[in-house]
């Protein structure tokens, strides 16, 4: 059992940070990596801020997972339209989509709502190479957990539509998981997208 100082796997410089984060960002060379048994360098995407976005800017990490969903059977009490199936091509019971899961610690309702919103309405954003001077929220969710949470998001979308879900038979295949930092602005009402 030991505690070690984290160093960048690419340039060897120690990583310094004002907050704890499971994703380590090297300010010298821009490399991001995680440690989970071994060292894994992450391919990360950073969203650009809308030019008119006010101050109090912050980056929020998300796991974005390209996935295939097949809905075999769904039964609800009280009816309601099928949210996921309406999203598929007409007549199809399956489709491909990006499932978004917030990767930072946040209040449960907000977590659920952001996951649903971004999965059903993919956020349009431009990318950039670095974070500039904008702070990041720490990532607390591991990649393997995110893949399981993708499953949770699929069921949540079906459960949250009008009617009370009673049965759902489906399959979900997650093809990849990428960490995306999206631009947000802190307001009195909480975090608001700023892409």
């Amino acid at each position, binding site marked *: 059992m030991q*505690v*070690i100082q984290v160093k960048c796997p690419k340039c060897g410089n120690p990583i310094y940070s004002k907050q704890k984060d499971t994703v380590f960002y090297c300010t010298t060379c821009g490399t991001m990596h995680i*440690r989970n048994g071994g060292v894994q360098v992450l391919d990360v995407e950073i969203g650009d801020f809308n030019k008119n976005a006010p101050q109090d800017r912050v980056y929020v990490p998300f796991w974005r997972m390209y996935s295939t969903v097949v809905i075999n059977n769904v039964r609800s009490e009280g009816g309601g339209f099928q949210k996921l199936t309406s999203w598929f091509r007409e007549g199809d019971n399956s489709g491909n989509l990006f499932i978004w899961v917030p990767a930072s610690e946040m209040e449960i309702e907000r977590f659920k709502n952001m996951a649903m919103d971004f999965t059903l309405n993919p956020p349009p954003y431009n990318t950039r190479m670095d974070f500039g001077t904008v702070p990041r929220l720490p990532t607390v969710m591991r990649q393997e957990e995110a893949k399981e949470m993708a499953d949770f998001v699929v069921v949540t979308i079906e459960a949250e539509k009008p009617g009370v879900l009673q049965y759902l038979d489906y399959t979900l295949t997650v093809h990849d998981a990428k960490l995306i930092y999206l631009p947000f602005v802190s307001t009195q009402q909480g975090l608001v997208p700023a892409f």
Partner: protein
Amino acid sequence: MGIEVGLNCPACSGAIKVVEGETTVNCQYCGSMLFVEGDAGVTTISFKNMITRETAVISSASWWKKGFKARDLKRVGQVTECYPIYIPFWSTTTRVAGWICGYEERTHSDGKRTYTERIPKEELILRDYRFSEIACDPGDLGIRKMRNIDGETALTDFQTIPTFESTTSKDDAFAHAKESAMANARSDAHVPHITFENVHVFPESMSMVYYPIWVVRYTYRDRMYLNTVDGVTGSVLSGRAPGDPLFQSLAVTAGTSIGGLLGATGIIVASSSGEVAIGCFVVGLIIMVGTYLFFRGGSEITEGDFSDRGFKLGDLKNVASQLTQGRVGGNNWGDI
């Protein structure tokens, strides 16, 4: 949250704290990002013993006075042994995320007829559950879970008092943590009839926590008893104590009266309904025999997680079912 552990930053030696189960921490002095590498993924933490032998004895004596224990226990009880020992526990926090769907049935009556209404339910579960379980054979200490998580801790052993060897595996502990979180989630969902369930369980990394416990052995009228005291908080965790004779005899009287009454009722209604009568008579007889067997060996009060428990009020109603399965013996209720 979880247990906090004190350690020194490898870069600047500053004293910092890391929360159990978390693998990253940043040093608030030099800003270095630090990573905790456990042995085979297990972090070992020990709590510092905070109480003295005197505190353990005083705490035990005040426990002797509480509840329906023998009224002269405080005066007659004699501590024969009092020593501290470290007990190992597996400890983790488990996050649960998912949906439990199904329905609940409610029966209504409008005076003429009754009908059953089926109310569909979909419940979201998204929360953390703490888990701990003893990692050795606790013998007859009456301890299975860790009750307290606040106190001075370190990643290394304090090594001033003897330690119980851990005998159970990390994999079993993980499996139990998952089962326990799943059971808690189902219970929190309150869906009596489940038709669909999709629940994900994420245990954090597992810790082995060494916790100081004081073992206090004492005698009361030639009988040996034992209780344990939490070495961090100083409160009694578990124990066995002699019951109060007055309270015992009152309970016996109540038990036999109900038994007798049911028996008598059985004979009276015998003419009108044979089945009910035999049922009443048998139940009455069982209760009478049960209360007799229950107290023949002397009663005992227990507190804590014992597999065979001493006297608790709820036990009276269990006597009948245990009797029919032949599990109530003569003296084993009272002996340690």
